[in-house]
């Protein structure tokens, strides 16, 4: 199947996500413009600074087209800052920070602390067990009824899904482990068949 997965490349760890997709034989496209968005079947939103990405989404004219594509059912996977961009509610964000409200969760920015508190931890999930890397990570403080918790640490959700929207507070792209990318690609493959 000729599937193209976009990686939002405005700012952040987009290169590591592209490498992960390449490692499982999936063609990836860096997305910085609405034209590039048109060519993709799914979109990955990487970690980075959510306030920076939020501003660049506006100045690059990508916010509304992405919003429309998500409403049409395009699969999206947000990690860390990418998860913040997808959340229905952002706590401790900038007052002008917009999000796509694509998944019914409340997320607190930098809730695990500064870099000195950033950590690695084992995650149990229904997709498999992972070594999660958490960098100045956001915390999922509320999960809506429609949201499925796929993975957690200390009984706290860190990997969630609602329909075609997948979100993680950690960084699967940093641990040389592409199983979550494979899982995301499988969501995209099912949608493409329909």
């Amino acid at each position, binding site marked *: 199947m000729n599937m193209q997965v976009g990686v939002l490349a405005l700012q952040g760890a987009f290169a590591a996500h592209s490498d992960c997709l390449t490692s499982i034989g999936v063609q990836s496209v860096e997305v910085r413009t609405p034209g590039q968005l048109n060519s993709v079947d799914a979109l990955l939103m990487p970690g980075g*600074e959510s306030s920076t990405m939020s501003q660049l989404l506006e100045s690059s004219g990508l916010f509304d087209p992405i919003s429309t594509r998500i409403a049409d059912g395009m699969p999206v996977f947000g990690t860390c800052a990418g998860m913040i961009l997808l959340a229905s509610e952002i706590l401790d964000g900038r007052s002008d920070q917009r999000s796509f409200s694509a998944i019914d969760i409340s997320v607190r920015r930098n809730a695990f602390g500064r*870099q*000195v508190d950033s950590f*690695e931890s084992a995650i149990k999930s229904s997709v498999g067990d992972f070594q999660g890397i958490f*960098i100045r990570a956001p915390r999922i403080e509320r999960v809506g009824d429609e949201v499925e918790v796929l993975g957690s640490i200390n009984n706290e959700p860190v990997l969630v899904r609602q329909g075609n929207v997948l979100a993680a507070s950690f960084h699967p792209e940093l641990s040389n482990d592409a199983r979550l990318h494979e899982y995301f690609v499988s969501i995209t493959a099912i949608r493409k068949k329909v």
Partner: protein
Amino acid sequence: MANMVSTNGSSSTGTNRVKRGLAEMLKGGVIMDVVNSDQAKIAEDAGACAVMALERVPADIRRDGGVARMSDPDMIMAIQASVHIPVMAKARIGHFVEAQILQSLGVDFIDESEVLTPADEAHHIDKFAFTIPFVCGATNLGEALRRISEGAALIRSKGEAGTGNMVEAVRHLRSILGDIRKITQADSAELFEWAKRLQAPLSLVQEIAETGKLQVPLFAAGGIATPADAALAMQLGAETVFVGSGIFKSADPAPRAKAIVEATTHFRDAAVLARVSRGLGVAMTGIGMDEINETQRFAQRGW
């Protein structure tokens, strides 16, 4: 050697992946030098992905002379309180106590910087002894690999800070990236000679031969003053840019900061670069390299 990885149950802090991970998050963003919380807010509003808190921007350090040291903790804490984005701060080369202080303040990244007056003329800081990551400057690949072998999680070109002149940063990026390209073409016997010539650990040279890239992200710094400068560094192969004096020494910092952020994202799109370069007012005046005495160059500090 103490390695500051600390493990609590199934959770560990200060690992290489966690340190290099923050450097990955900064890619494609702009890290801006700021001297107070007002400037930090302007930087965040403009879309900076991090700020570097320091008492004087490099252009003023260069003008004032004397000994340049770590900034006052009060000033760093005021900046931490004013923004959500990561806050970096500078320690002198080899001054591991300044670095200990910065770590205890909860700074997110330490720049062991040649812009400050070196505290040790033979040794850099043992960066494995810290939980938070370090960025170090380099003028060539050997210097970059020596810093990585000491635990640096991020390398930047030194350039010549405080000049508003790109020529040294371009030289350093071309040297680092050019040598990486050559190493990928070398046979296994030649790698021993490369390690000797670079004065760098053989294992790191062999790793580059295999992967074709540096072990940690490579950013550009030193002399970036315009959106075109940022895009030049990116097209040469830098993964993002630090802008020091270039923003707050210009006539109108806020729009220039925003323009450099957009230029760093859309660095291959000349139409965007043209649009964001318009109407920015006067850039910092800048200094030609022949106007700086050899002994006053920051880039030669570090060993």
